[in-house]
């Protein structure tokens, strides 16, 4: 007589993980275009999010690299303006006093010449059409302090600093239409000819110099009769003492009116500029999340349709001995595979966008591993979530109803 002993002999079988993935892939293999299109939504979401993170990190990596080269120990001391709005200049001893501060490694000053000293490409240009180029008289050691390099020509030496010679900042040169340094090229500066001896590369830590024309201290005195004091002093100090030096600079540079003095750390400004991009990044990340959500709904929709269409397959599998759980796991796996497919594609696409953008900006392309891994993990979660309802529907289907389906 058949009793409970026989029932024990009925041992429900398990599907191995390999078989589960194989079975879960059946639907994707049978309808590759549909799988591709529904994975695409997820992929675009992940690609957008990864590209935002990747581009932001690449920009950060570029800044780090730039700061590594430029150093973060440069301070800029500006004389500021008085209460009438006139630019004041530092008293004569300001620069030597600053150089005497213990942790200061080097310092160099520039004098901003009055606004009526204008620059023209040649003397036939109407006086009103100034080029908007500011003129500074400079010390010879300026490039080493601010980290300026030459794009062409050379910097002042002891001799050329006394001659009517000019070095152009990078954008000033562009504005004047001068791309290379050749002998006998002159511009009009303060009403007389100055020959161009050099053009600077952009100076990230002293961006004011980019749109400036620089002449020697002695030339300013000899040819333009201007001998006023420094208006900006650039200070390099020992890395660890930068903040301490910063505290004493105002009083050291202008003991009489320290409150006019503005001290800033240009490397901070560069970092802050990057930080302002974060709000924008948050918006893009949000858009990516919305795309991901819509993609997830697309996957759920595809799975619901798939379950409806494959009722007879479900019936067959039930007749072959699949349990409800087997059916549920099959469709859940299919949903996860579908979403993960989109995730992997999205990560590849996002990384490609990051690389393309970073290379176009000459940034070091950086795709954080946690972002790529996290992106795929998110898609797996989205796929599992999207698959819950369709899988439950498939599992609930009675075998007889499923088999009767066309």
């Amino acid at each position, binding site marked *: 007589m058949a009793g409970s002993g026989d029932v024990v002999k009925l041992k429900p079988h398990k599907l191995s993980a390999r078989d589960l993935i194989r079975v879960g892939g059946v639907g994707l293999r049978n309808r590759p275009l549909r799988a591709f299109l529904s994975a695409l939504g997820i992929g675009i979401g992940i690609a957008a999010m990864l590209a935002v993170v990747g581009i932001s990190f690449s920009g950060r990596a570029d800044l780090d690299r730039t700061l590594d080269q430029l150093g973060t120990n440069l301070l800029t001391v500006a004389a500021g303006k008085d209460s009438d709005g006139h630019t004041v200049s530092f008293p004569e001893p300001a620069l030597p006093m600053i150089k005497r501060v213990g942790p200061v490694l080097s310092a160099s000053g520039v004098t901003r010449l009055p606004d009526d000293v204008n620059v023209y490409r040649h003397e036939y240009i109407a006086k009103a059409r100034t080029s908007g180029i500011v003129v500074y008289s400079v010390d010879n050691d300026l490039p080493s302090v601010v980290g300026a390099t030459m794009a062409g020509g050379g910097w002042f030496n002891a001799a050329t600093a006394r001659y009517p010679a000019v070095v152009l900042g990078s954008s000033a040169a562009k504005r004047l239409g001068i791309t290379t340094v050749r002998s006998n090229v002159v511009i009009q500066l303060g009403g007389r000819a100055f020959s161009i001896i050099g053009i600077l590369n952009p100076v990230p830590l002293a961006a004011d110099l980019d749109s400036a024309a620089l002449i020697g201290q002695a030339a300013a005195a000899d040819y333009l009769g201007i001998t006023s004091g420094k208006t900006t002093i650039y200070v390099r100090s020992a890395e660890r003492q930068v903040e301490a030096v910063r505290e004493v600079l105002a009083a050291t540079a202008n003991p009489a009116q320290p409150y006019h003095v503005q001290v800033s750390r240009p490397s901070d400004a560069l970092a802050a500029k990057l930080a302002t991009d974060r709000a924008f990044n948050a918006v893009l990340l949000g858009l990516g999340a919305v795309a991901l959500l819509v993609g997830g709904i697309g996957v759920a929709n595809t799975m619901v349709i798939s379950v409806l269409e494959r009722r007879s397959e479900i019936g067959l599998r039930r007749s072959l*001995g*699949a349990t409800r759980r087997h059916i549920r796991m099959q469709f859940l796996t299919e949903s996860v595979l579908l979403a993960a497919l989109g995730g992997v594609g999205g990560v590849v696409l996002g990384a490609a966008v990051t690389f393309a953008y970073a290379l176009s900006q000459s940034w070091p392309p950086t795709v954080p591993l946690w972002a790529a891994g996290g992106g795929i993990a998110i898609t797996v979660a989205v796929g599992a979530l999207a698959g819950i309802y369709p899988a439950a529907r498939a599992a609930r289907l009675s075998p007889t109803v499923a*088999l009767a389906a066309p």
Partner: protein
Amino acid sequence: MTGDAVAELIAVSKLYPGGVAALQEVDLRIEPGELLAIVGPSGSGKSTLLNLLGTLDQPTSGEVRIAGHPVAGLSDRHLSALRADHVGFVFQQFHLAPATTALDNVADGLLYCGVGQAQRRERAARALQRVGLGHRMRHRPHELSGGEKQRVAIARAVVGEPDLLLADEPTGNLDTATGGAIVALLRELNSSGTTVVVITHDREIAEGLPRTVALRDGRVR
């Protein structure tokens, strides 16, 4: 009652919601090694009987035993295991997976039996040879004729060596000659020991088999 029967129905009734009685007080005993036809016009309760024999459905009253296991009160998992290990199905519509080779379609017959893939394929190859399709293993369903498709489906049903092979209108989608060949194949399988139940509305086929159970209006006549 010996308990030896492959399938045993005792006073089985099946009522559908709305009071339609698909089966009424049916007694049926199928011995190992039998080949029988269940025959009747549409609406006679054939399909319901097939579903009960295949444990795809439960009776409203009465007792069903398949391979010695009383079906009443079994969980979904145990019922599924019963189907996996003891029952094979052949359908009128073949139900083959598209874009899947004949070999893998047959191997899927063992998917839920706890058998590894290598062994599934090996046994599937043997089952295909047994139904005379040893040369069609790598073909996909759309490359096969109707008769060949049904042979693949039969191979899938017997690959697990079930105690009971249920064939639901196995010749319904085939022409007479091909259908005859399928019946011959079922006879052949039966002569090597498989218990075969053919559900059909075709009296001619039914009368060619050793035993015929005629159904009408939910009762065995």
